[in-house]
């Protein structure tokens, strides 16, 4: 984990003005979360008043219960958990293998292939939606969770991220030792590479889970509201057939909570991962 440790640095020491500016910014950044709780716990009539209420009200649980009845939010939560879970497992495993190959193995075409893999990060996946949609219809998968999972089983960012991690974290001596001991390639991956890659895999897993949970464009096209992910259900919730803002906000709260909880528990590591993944530039 040392790779992700923030470097200590010298000259600048925060004064009161720095604290004040940072605190003000943090408040602005966190205000929408607070207001989400306020709006989710108030009856609609109060949310339509001016000035709007500034403190949480008593209706949080009844609004959440109503939201769970609307737009399949309950099913959407389960679906999103399945989709994000499968994508995370697959992405972490496949990206670790590819990242290990690019970081530590010598083979013909390594440089160009890695450049190609990184280059694909520049292509926004949303541009291929038309053929992707016909493909899923042809495979009979339109509307199913598989149509959302399949295109995201692996990610160029993850390959890049695991390569950067393993270049530093995995000493060549260990691989040499495994070779001297006569370990097969598979054995080396299992007993040497994976244990050392684990911290990097954990960070990549969290980032992947967040991205998959929040993915919007393709799921909105591929799925409909009878079998939605959380984001598809939220889009429908905002689509106007639920006039009660308190219920809309309660649904939003329920759909956001899992990721925010993960983030609050592991935010430090996620921050470290984003910083480490960015240093390539």
């Amino acid at each position: 984990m040392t790779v992700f440790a923030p470097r200590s640095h010298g000259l600048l020491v925060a004064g009161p003005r720095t604290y004040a500016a940072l605190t003000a910014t943090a408040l602005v950044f966190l205000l929408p979360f607070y207001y989400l709780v306020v709006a989710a716990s108030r009856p609609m009539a109060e949310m339509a008043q001016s000035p709007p209420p500034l403190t949480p009200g008593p209706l949080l649980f009844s609004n959440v219960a109503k939201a769970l009845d609307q737009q399949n939010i309950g099913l959407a939560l389960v679906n999103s958990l399945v989709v994000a879970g499968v994508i995370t497992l697959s992405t972490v495993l496949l990206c670790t293998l590819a990242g290990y190959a690019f970081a530590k193995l010598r083979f013909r075409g390594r440089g160009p292939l890695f450049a190609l893999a990184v280059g694909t990060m520049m292509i926004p996946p949303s541009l291929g939606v038309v053929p992707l949609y016909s493909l899923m219809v042809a495979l009979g998968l339109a509307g199913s969770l598989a149509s959302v999972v399949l295109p995201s089983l692996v990610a160029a960012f993850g390959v890049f991220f695991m390569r950067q991690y393993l270049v530093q974290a995995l000493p060549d001596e260990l691989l040499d030792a495994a070779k001297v001991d006569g370990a097969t390639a598979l054995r080396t991956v299992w007993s040497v590479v994976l244990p050392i890659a684990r911290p990097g895999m954990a960070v990549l897993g969290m980032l992947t889970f967040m991205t998959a949970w929040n993915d919007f464009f393709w799921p909105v096209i591929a799925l409909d509201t009878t079998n939605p992910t959380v984001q598809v259900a939220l889009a429908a919730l905002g689509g106007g057939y639920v006039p009660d803002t308190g219920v809309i906000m309660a649904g939003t709260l329920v759909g956001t909570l899992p990721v925010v909880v993960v983030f609050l528990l592991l935010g430090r590591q996620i921050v470290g991962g984003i910083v480490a993944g960015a240093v390539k530039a």
Partner: protein
Amino acid sequence: MTLTLSRPEPAVVNGRRARRSRLHAFEARSAPYVYIAPFFLLFAAFGLFPLIDTAWISLHRYRLGSSMSFIGLDNYAWLFTNPAFYNALLKTFTIGVLSTVPQLLLALGLAHLLNHRMRGRTFFRVAMLMPYATSVAAATLVFAQLFSRDAGLINWLLGVVGVNPVDWRNGSWAAQIAISSIIIWRWTGYNALIYLAGMQSISQDLYEAAALDGANAWQQFRHVTLPGLRPTILFTIVVSTIGASQVFGEPLIFGGGAAEGGALGQYQTLGLFLYQQGWQIGQLGRAAAVAWVMFLMIVVLVLVNSALARRRERAA
């Protein structure tokens, strides 16, 4: 050791060992390709093939649920004579500028603040990144409430300082500013962390030398931090410009789920236009033409950016 090697070995064991080491060598040689194959196969199937097929489909009349017929460049002719396309292009550009420029400037300032030795460093970093953890849909639903005309918190706050309520949903610039503010809120912290990482890789010696030369804090920022961050800044510009060309969820949900982007298309981006053509009107061929034009724009953008970067490197 020498003793062991020089001892004669039975021929059978020798042969088996040779076979096994050949197997080993083959396994070792092919292993890297086996490890990278899933990435490239999946990318070929769900990334590259759809991209190329998009170009092919864009040459067809292709309605949702029916078969394709070849019509050459008709979709492009339709696109380039369509005022709605130019409107979407313009709105993508203006929302892109309104969201990207303040976002990166704020991120730069924020990274500078975070680059101090302080208490509560982790708290501030996590707080800045919290918006990044929320989804486009959730963020937009909350902001739509904050920006509501009659009972929104923002209009109320504006009223407190004596500004008349703004119709954030129907005004053209107002709606674009509201949508941009959602993007700014979600991405500023993320970019600040990337700048922070870049700042921490700048050598302390440079700052000490500048301080010895009598440079004040601003001059140090201007002449040490900014030049050191140049590659990072270029990276974030490319990434956020590509992101800005794809804006979709914010205007969709801000407009209550309608792909028109406001009654007059005040905030219809190219992403929304593509979705409207493909899945609301059902003209998948036209949607593919929009996607392919967007792709070419991104290619040009990335090329221009890397050419600029290379020229600056040579000049430096």
